[in-house]
Each structure stands twice: as C-alpha cells, then as structure tokens.
C-alpha cells in the first residue's frame, strides 16, 4: 500500500500543479492585457491632451474620444511632423483600446461594458478642463465651461 502511494505521488502532484496553472492563467493573461493597454494609453496621453487643447478632439457621452470637426480627422496629430499619425488613426487606436478596457472591467466586475463606458464618460466630463470639448447625449459639441453652465 505504502509503495503504491509513493508510486502515485508524483503523478498526483503533477495533476495538482496543472490544475493550479490552468486556474491562474486566465487571470494572469487578463492582467497582462490590462498592463499593455495602460502602457498604450500612457504613450498616447500627451498627444491626447494636446489635441484637446487644440480643440480638435473631445470626449463623448459614450466614453470615447471624437473629432470635434470632421475635417480634423485627416490632419496629422502633430501638424509639423509628416510621420505623425492622422487624427483618425489616433482616435481609432484610442477608442479600440478604450472599448477593450470597458470589456475587461465589465468582465471583472460582473457588469456590462456599456455601464463601464457610461461611468468613464462621466469621469472624463467631470475632470475635463474648461476649454475642452464634450459631446453629451444630445450630440452637440460644447465646451466644458458652457456645459457646466447649462447643467
């Protein structure tokens, strides 16, 4: 009996380790993805702030960034740099990552991505500078200072 026990112990340990790894992997993968997302947001952040200062980009009630006028979409983020991505490309990247973040947080907090997006929009509206453009649900772009007066 004792001999059999020792015979099976390594196999049992391997099984246990495999199970633990299988349990740990999804959480770890999600954490890695969040870290990668955060890094990309960090890299884009200075450009996003500059675009908002320029009045070319604003925040929408959907928790996403948008171009205040359609003609800005074809402009370069850095107008003096021909290698700089267009505003359209910049916004596509930013909003793709935001949507993914909403999904990840929704999964983690057992809620919907739409709710996370709504809270994110609220957070961005609250923290916006007075000169920044916001687009509430009515669809009109409005500066934060005018939005506050209206509210």
């Amino acid at each position, binding site marked *: 009996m004792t001999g059999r026990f020792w015979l099976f112990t390594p196999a049992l340990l391997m099984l246990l380790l495999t199970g633990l790894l299988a349990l740990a992997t999804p959480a770890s993968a999600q954490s890695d993805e*969040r870290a990668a997302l*955060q890094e990309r*947001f*960090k890299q884009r*952040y*200075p450009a996003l*702030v500059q*675009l908002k*200062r*320029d*009045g*070319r980009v604003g925040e*929408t009630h*959907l928790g*996403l*960034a*948008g*171009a*205040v*006028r*359609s*003609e*800005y*979409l074809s*402009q370069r983020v850095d*107008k003096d740099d021909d290698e700089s991505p267009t505003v359209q490309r910049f*916004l596509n990247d930013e*909003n793709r990552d935001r949507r993914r*973040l909403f999904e990840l*947080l929704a999964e*983690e*907090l057992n*809620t919907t991505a739409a*709710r*996370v997006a709504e*809270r*994110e929009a609220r*957070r961005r509206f609250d*923290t916006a*500078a*007075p*000169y920044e*453009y916001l687009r509430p649900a009515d*669809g*009109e*772009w*409005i500066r934060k200072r005018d939005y506050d007066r209206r509210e």
Partner: protein
Amino acid sequence: MNRHAPCCWMAGLALAGVMTVGGCTSHRVTVDPVEVRPIHMTVDINIKIDRELDRFFDFEDEVPVDHGARASSTGSPAGSPKTEGAQP
C-alpha cells in the same frame, strides 16, 4: 392557614393551566423579507467601476495639465462646431 390552602391550590392549578395552554399555542414570528433594491446595487457597482477607472488612469495625474490654458489658435474651431462624421 388551612383556610387559605384551597385558594393556593386553585391559583396554582390555574397558573399551571395557563402555562400549559400557553406552551401549546403556536407563535409565528413573521419577518419581512430583506429587500435589496436595485438602486443600491447600481450605486455599489458604480463605485466599484469608478474606483477601477481611477486606479487604471492614475498616470493622468502625473502629466501636468494646465486647466486655465486656452485652446491654441491653430486648431481651435471658431464658434460652435457643427460637424458630425467625426463619430468615435
């Protein structure tokens, strides 16, 4: 002393009877169900989401943003922007 004995017996019997009957009756205590209102749950989840978002975007506080700055003249739209087509 003996004159009071029947009274004591009667009173004792009556008390015992009352206690016996009282013990046999069923007492039902009704407790109102605890109602978890959706609004409480909503507030709770909103707080959790806000906390996670604040934590995730905490790097934004490190970049100084001049809230008193005016939009630059180069890209600042004049008047009220009417555009659509810039849908996110």
